[in-house]
C-alpha cells in the first residue's frame, strides 16, 4: 500500500463557494448531527428509565444516523464543490463500515468484561478482569489457539498444490477451459453442504467411498475422526479442498501475467525446466504468492463451519478452531461474556500476528526482488 501524496487525477476548481451556500451547508450538517445526538441521548435516557418518553426501539436513532450520513455526504459537495465530490467516493463505504464495525466493537468491549450468562436471571454483571484470568487458565482455549497455528501451517501444503495446479493449467493443454472450470468447482460449494456430503457421508467408516478406498488400500479399520491427529488432518484436507481453487486462480493469474520475454530469455540461456522454475518463475511469482497466502491465512483464521458441522471440536477439543470453540461457549453455554472476551483477545492476537507477518513478508520480498 503506497501513500499517494497528491491526487493522481488533478481537477480544476470551478468556482469559489458563496457565503450563503457555506452557511446553509454548515447549518444542515450541524442540525442533522444535533438530531442524531439528541435522539441517541433521548433513547438512552428512556432505556435507562430516567424519562418515560421515548421510542419503542432504537431504530429512530438508526434513521437519524442514516440521515446524518446522507447530509454529511451532500454537504461535502455544498461546502467544498469539486473537492467535495471526491470525498463522495469514499464516504458512503466509510460511514457504512464505521456504523457496522465500530459500534459493535465498542459494545463487544463492554460485554467482554462482564459476567453474562444469557440463561441467568440476574443478567449482566461487570466482573473486571475475571474473564481474562479464566482465559489464562483455560487449557482448551490455548489448545484452540495452537490448532489455529497448525491449521495455518497446512497452508504451505495447500500453496504447493495450488501452485502445481496453476502450473498444470498454464501448460499447453487441450480443453483448458474445461479443466479450469472443473478445478474451480469446490470453491463454489457451501462449506455446510461439504461438511455433510464429504465429512459425514464420504468419510463414513462403513459405506463412505473414501473409507472403502482406504480399506481396499489396506487400512483395515479406517477412522477419520477417531484420534486427534487424523481428525485434524481430515479437517485440514476438507478445508484445503474448498480453498485450493481460490489460491490456484490467483497464482494462475500471476503466471499468465508473467513477462513472456523473460521466460523465453531463460529458455534460450539453456536452463533446464527445473532451473527455470526455481530461478525465474518462482521469484517472479513471489509477490502474487505472498498476496495469495496472506488472503488464505485470513480465511483460514475464520475456519469454523466445517468443524462445527463435522466434529463439533471433537474428539475432546482436538480439532477446535478458536471460532468453533467460542461458538460452542456461546451457543451451548450461552456464556456470552466470556465468549466475547475470547473473541476480542483472538482479534488482538490476529491483528498483531498479521501485522508482523506482513512486515516480515514485505522485508523478505524486498530483499528477494531487490536481488533480481
Amino acid at each position, binding site marked *: 500500500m503506497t501513500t499517494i501524496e497528491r491526487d493522481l487525477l488533478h481537477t480544476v476548481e470551478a468556482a469559489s463557494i458563496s457565503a450563503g451556500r457555506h452557511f446553509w451547508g454548515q447549518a444542515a450538517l450541524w442540525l442533522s448531527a444535533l438530531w442524531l445526538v439528541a435522539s441517541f441521548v433521548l433513547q438512552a435516557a428512556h432505556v435507562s428509565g430516567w424519562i418515560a418518553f421515548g421510542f419503542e426501539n432504537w431504530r429512530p436513532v438508526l434513521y437519524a444516523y442514516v440521515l446524518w450520513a446522507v447530509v454529511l455526504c451532500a454537504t461535502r459537495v455544498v461546502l467544498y464543490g469539486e473537492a467535495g465530490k471526491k470525498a463522495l467516493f469514499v464516504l458512503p463505504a466509510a460511514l457504512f463500515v464505521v456504523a457496522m464495525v465500530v459500534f459493535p466493537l465498542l459494545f463487544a468491549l463492554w460485554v467482554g468484561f462482564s459476567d453474562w450468562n444469557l440463561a441467568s436471571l440476574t443478567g449482566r454483571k461487570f466482573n473486571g478482569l475475571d474473564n481474562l484470568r479464566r482465559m489464562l487458565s483455560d487449557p482448551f482455549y490455548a489448545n484452540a489457539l495452537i490448532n489455529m497455528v497448525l491449521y495455518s501451517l497446512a497452508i504451505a501444503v495447500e500453496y504447493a498444490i495450488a501452485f502445481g495446479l496453476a502450473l498444470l493449467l498454464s501448460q499447453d493443454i487441450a480443453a483448458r477451459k474445461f479443466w479450469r472450470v472443473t478445478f474451480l468447482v469446490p470453491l463454489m460449494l457451501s462449506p455446510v453442504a461439504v461438511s455433510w456430503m464429504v465429512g459425514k457421508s464420504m468419510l463414513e467408516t462403513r459405506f463412505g467411498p473414501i473409507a472403502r478406498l482406504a480399506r481396499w488400500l489396506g487400512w483395515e479399520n479406517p477412522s477419520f475422526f*477417531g484420534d486427534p491427529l487424523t481428525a485434524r488432518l481430515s479437517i485440514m484436507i476438507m478445508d484445503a479442498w474448498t480453498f485450493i481453487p481460490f489460491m490456484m486462480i490467483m497464482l494462475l493469474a500471476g503466471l499468465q501475467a508473467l513477462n513472456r520475454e523473460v521466460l523465453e530469455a531463460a529458455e534460450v540461456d539453456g536452463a533446464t525446466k527445473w532451473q527455470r522454475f526455481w530461478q525465474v518463475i518462482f521469484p517472479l511469482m513471489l509477490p502474487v504468492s505472498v498476496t495469495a497466502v496472506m488472503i488464505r491465512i485470513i480465511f483460514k483464521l475464520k475456519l469454523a463451519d466445517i468443524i462445527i458441522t463435522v466434529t463439533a471440536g471433537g474428539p475432546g*477439543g482436538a480439532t477446535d478452531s478458536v471460532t468453533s470453540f467460542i461458538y460452542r461457549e456461546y451457543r451451548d453455554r450461552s456464556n456470552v461474556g466470556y465468549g466475547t472476551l475470547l473473541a476480542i483477545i483472538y482479534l488482538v492476537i490476529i491483528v498483531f500476528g498479521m501485522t508482523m507477518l506482513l512486515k516480515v513478508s514485505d522485508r523478505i520480498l524486498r530483499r528477494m526482488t531487490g536481488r533480481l
Partner: protein
Amino acid sequence: MKVEIYDALMRRQASRREVLRGTASAAALLGVSSVMGGIPGMALAADDLRAQILKIPGVGKGAPTDADWQKVGELCLEPTKANVAAGEFAGVELTFMGLNNQNLHNFLFRGFLKPWEAYTGAKINWIDLAQADYNARLQQSIATGTVDFDVIEMGAPFEGDTAGRGLLDEMPDWVSKQIEADDLVDYLKAPVGTWEGKTYRVTIDGDCHTFAYRKDYFGEGSISGRAEPPKTWQEVNEVSKALIGKTDPLTGLPAYGYLDPLKGWGGFGFYFVENRATAYVKYPGDPAWLFDPENMKPLVNNPAWVQAIQDVMDLIAAKAYPSDQINADPGTTAFSQFLAGTGSMLMWWGDVGSSARTSDTSVVGDVVGFGINRGSSRVYNRKTGQWEEKYNEAPNMAYIGWGIYVTKRVSDDEKKRKAAWSAAAHLGGKDISLWTSAYPSGFQPYRQSHFNYDEWQAAGYDRAYIEEYLGSNANSYNHPNAAIEPRIPGIFQYYSVAEDELAKGFAGQYKSAQETADAIAAAWEKITDQIGRESQLKLYRASLGL
C-alpha cells in the same frame, strides 16, 4: 410383557389416579361422560378413523411422506371443527418454533397443520432449529427478551426456563377437553406440564429410554454365547467386550455390543451416560440422583457416576465401539447404526421401536427385541457412602417428552390466542397421536389409549413384537424407581457442559473417570452459582417433591 400383567398395571394405575387426583377427576369425568353419552355409532366411527389412519401408508410400506402427513392431518380435523368455525382465524399469523429434524417434528407439523390452516384460515410461519441448537436458541430468546414465536415445541425440562419466568400462556380448559388430557400416562400428568399450579402444555410425546437389542446376537449358538440378553450393565459391558472381533450374523460386517453415543448433542447426549448411571446411582426411595437436595452440590462425581463413566472409558480402551464412534452424531446411533445393522444393544427413546418396522433405514425389523433400562448388581447409597450388593434398576425418563406450548405473546389477542391453542390441540389430539406413535415422527406412545395392542396388530404389527415394544415403554413409565429429571432452569446447560467435559474425558484429555467427573461437578457448581444457588435449590427440591 404379558397382557394380563399389563392390564393389571393399568387397573392399578387407574385406581391410584382416582385417589390422587381428587377434584381434578371431576373434569376428567366430564370428558369421559361426553364420550359415553355419545351415540355408539360415533364411537365406532372414531375406531374406524383410528384404523384408517394407521394404514397411512401402512406398516412395511416405507416411510411416510408429506402427502401422508397432510392426509392424516385432514382426517384428524374433527375435534378442531367442533371448537372452531371454518375460517374463524382468517388473517391470523402464528410463528411456530420447533425442531427441523428430517421428516420428523416440524416436517410433520407442517403437513398436519396444512389442512388446519386451510380450514381455519390462519397462517403459520416456521422457525426450524437443529436439535443441537435448540437449547441455545431458546436460552438466548429468553434472556435477550426476543421471544419471537407464538407456539413452541418444547420439552418439559425447559418449563423452568419458560413457565418459571412467566413467558407462557396458560392453557384454556377447552383445550384439555379437546385433547382428552386425562388419557395421558400417569407420569406425564401434573406436575409435568404445569408450573405453580397452572397448566401450560399440550403433550405430544412421552419419553423414556428403553433397551433395544438384537435377538440374533443372543440364544443357543449365537455369537455372544449367551442364551439371554444381559440383565445388568455389568453384563452389557462383558458382552460388548466379548463381541470384539466377531462378525454380525445379519450384515456380515464386524459385530459390536452396546452403542454409546460419545459426542455432544447440545445437551441431549448426556442422557446416555445417565442411562448407564441411573441403576448405580438412583437408590430406591431417594429421589435425588443429579444434585444433593440439601445444598445443590452435584452428585455427578460420586463413585456411582464415576463407575458409569469408567465403564465407557474401559470400552473405548478395549476398542469395543465401531471406528469413529467418538465422532458419530448421537442421532445416528439408533437410526444409522443400530437400525442399519451395526451394533447389537442400544438405549434409546421409544420411537426406535416403531421405526424398526416403518423406517426406510431399518434392516433389523425382524430381529429386534426390547426391555426396560438394564439394572445393576450393586447400587450406591449416597447416604452411607457405600456400594450395596443388591439388584437395582431405574429407567431414565429422558426429557419427559415434547409438548406444544403457547407463549405470552398471544395472550392479549383473544383471536390469536385461540388460534394458537387450536393449532396446539390439533397436534396433541388423541387420534393424531396414535399415528405419530406408530410411524416415524420423533414421538413415542404417551397415552393410555396407545397401549391398545389390537389397534397395532390391525395395522400390521405382529402381536409378540408390539407387546414387547410397547411393554418396555409402559414398564418404564410406571416403574417405581424411575429416574425423572428435575425441571429446573438451565438444566440443559448442566447437560451441555457435562457433555463437553465427557467428550474431553473420552478423548483421553483427562487422566481418569474421576477427574472427568470432577470437572463436570466443578462446571455445574459454576452454573448453579451463576443462575443463583438459592433459587435453584428451591426449585430443585420442589421438583423432587421435597
